[in-house]
């Protein structure tokens, strides 16, 4: 019998390459794929997906006890936390300005600037700054973050339809990258990328966050929308071809399976093992759907995710 000929895909599209950092900081490039994730026989993946660790600007006392115990004292100091995160293998730091949320301390621009300065000076890896996820507050703190990090090419999110002009203007003025967030929808994702390009941001300054749902909480929708976005991009749609950014840690650790220690059925198993698996499986699914940057919370998951990325890259 003759050798089996495996059908290969001849994609015409390519994911835009986006560079974070530089100008004295370490830099890292994501994107550039000409294949679906890790199918090296179809095309190239010049840059491997990277792992960010989430750092917050407040002490997250509401986090799972497993996260609190593994991070320990650094949780009250974003600078020390970021340093520790780099030791644990973070390729980049994702600073979540959670204290700016109206339901938290409702802090403003000056506090945001301070936290960003702290993290930028504590580590030399690239940085992502995320607002509290409320459009008006995001505007306020992200503009401040942008100025504080001028020239250091950080990424700023959420940039939603509502506030995209403000965030894009900051990115243009200070040389940053916008993280365009849309709710699990192919067309909305493309639409926001188009809007951002219309106001002058170039495709190499946009990451897209198609919204992450955790395992058990919408992962299948995210998985399929990401897969469709990637297929569209490889088919030649440049407005679907932004590298994808996913907040897996945040989504998994807020679910009951990870949060609740008592009063759950014994069939749920050991709490730590379950929580870690929840985050790890969410991460590997997102990687297989095309994620370029994944934000995680637990150091063990970081180690595992990085090891699996290396294995997927070297096959």
């Amino acid at each position, binding site marked *: 019998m003759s050798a089996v000929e495996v059908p290969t895909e001849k994609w015409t599209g390519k994911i835009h390459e986006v560079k974070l950092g530089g100008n004295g900081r370490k830099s890292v490039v994501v994107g550039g794929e000409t294949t679906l994730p890790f199918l090296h026989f179809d095309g190239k993946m010049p840059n491997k997906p990277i792992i960010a660790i989430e750092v917050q600007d407040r002490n997250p006392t509401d986090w799972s006890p497993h996260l609190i115990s593994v991070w320990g004292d650094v949780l009250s100091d974003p600078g020390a936390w970021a340093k520790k995160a780099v030791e644990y293998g973070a390729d980049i730091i994702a600073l979540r300005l959670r204290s700016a949320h109206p339901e938290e301390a409702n802090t403003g621009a000056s506090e945001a600037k301070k936290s960003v300065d702290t993290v930028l000076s504590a580590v030399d890896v690239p940085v992502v700054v995320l607002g509290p996820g409320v459009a008006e507050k995001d505007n306020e703190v992200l503009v401040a973050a942008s100025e504080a990090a001028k020239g250091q090419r950080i990424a700023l999110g959420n940039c939603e339809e509502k506030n995209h002009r403000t965030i894009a203007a900051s990115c243009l003025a200070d040389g940053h990258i916008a993280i365009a967030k849309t709710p699990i929808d192919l067309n909305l994702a493309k639409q926001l990328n188009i809007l951002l390009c219309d106001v002058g941001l170039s495709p190499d300054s946009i990451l897209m966050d198609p919204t992450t749902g955790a395992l058990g909480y919408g992962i299948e929708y995210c998985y*399929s929308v990401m*897969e469709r976005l990637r*297929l569209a991009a490889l088919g030649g749609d440049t407005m679907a071809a932004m590298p994808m950014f996913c907040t897996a840690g945040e989504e998994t650790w807020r679910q009951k399976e990870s949060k609740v220690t008592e009063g759950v059925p014994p069939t749920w198993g050991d709490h730590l093992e379950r929580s870690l698996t929840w985050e790890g499986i969410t991460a*590997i699914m997102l990687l297989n759907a095309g994620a370029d940057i994944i934000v995680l919370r637990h150091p063990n998951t970081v180690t595992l995710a990085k090891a*699996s990325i290396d294995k997927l890259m070297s096959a």
Partner: protein
Amino acid sequence: MALTGIEIYKFLPKTNCKECGFPTCLAFAMKLAAKGVELSLCPYVSEESKQALESASRPPIRLVTIGTGDRKIGVGNEVVLYRHEKTFYNPPAFIIQIKDTDSADDVARIVDEVSSYSVERVGLELKLNGVAIENASNNGDNFVKCVELVKSKTDLPLILMSNNPSAMDQALEKVSDAKPLIYAANKENVDQMVELAKKYQCPLAVYEPAGLSELAELVTRVTDAGVEDVVLDPGAREFGQSLSALTQIRRLAIKKSFQPLGFPVITFPGQGSGGIEEEAMLAGQQVAKYAGIIVLDRFTPGVVYPLATLRLNIYTDPQKPIQMTPGIYEIGKPTKESPLCVTTNFSLTYFSIAGELESSGFPAWLMVCDTEGLSVLTSWAAGKLDADKIAKTVKEFNVADKISHRNIIIPGGVAVLRGELEEELPDWKVMVGPRDAVDVGGFLKKQ
């Protein structure tokens, strides 16, 4: 690949003799395409056409059944590469592997745990699907003893793992009625394993790690010898190898209708990873990227529960979220004084809040609105959960008759609906509950 009516028509006699009970050959062909009738109704279709039709309508990936009775499993029969193109149909089986070198006590305990494991999620019972017994001792008697012990403890499908045909024969003699999967035929033992598969009428796994061409060649030998139910093991164990091999196999089957590889694939994530968490991640990848049977090295609920959840998620029809029937549900034994809560008919949403209400210890009425299977925030954003919908649901199910008070609790996520809802339900007091279901017990306690 399923044929269209027109394609089938080409193979029919085109004489419109009506003997099949249809007015024309085309009408019969249409019905055949819709799988409403059997080809045998037409007495005139030629032997050649019959064969051509059969092979053309053969599914690109054969459905293989392992085990018997209620808990038998059917794997394969997938038709797409990406779930959004249609759906994935037959969830991969999760099998727990034991060894015939494990102590009898351990084996008995694990098999009990595996058989009885059942975890509830969105109203469904998620379970494990079988036990694989490895002939690690390489001794036929030990193997048979262990297989018999397992069989005596469970009705779950079995996989018999031995490269040794005589050990396999001994074991099959005892348990072939249970239709276990024979694992595996390889280059050396293929002829003997084929004989066993035929003698005992059991499905056969084919292991060939040298490459897909070699695997296809070996499978062809097996199928040419008359074994129809085949499971593939390309031996690709690690993350990257597994993704490549399984994607290529799926592509060849679906896009090229390449029959030698048109079978479900078995994976062993434990062999391709370091620890249990990594095994779970690799198994997770294989749920989506294209395994039919996943053999886990260990049974641990903390890993099995997330994996079973993932399997449920990925194998949900993308067009149809799992839904509840709208209506008024009793949580505990509610009375006329019990609180009334509102939620949506997305199963995940319903079971999240119903579960928390139940464990809070407060009996309650839970009113489920028809939001076409969307969650609270999604349905609100899509305009499918608004004050009007809630008010109508209250009326439709005569909710007012069930309770003596007029308080209605809405999810915290849609607090904005409060004002409008008070206008729609003038005699009622609208209360905003917590955003997360977990906090509902604390909320009710304060009331």
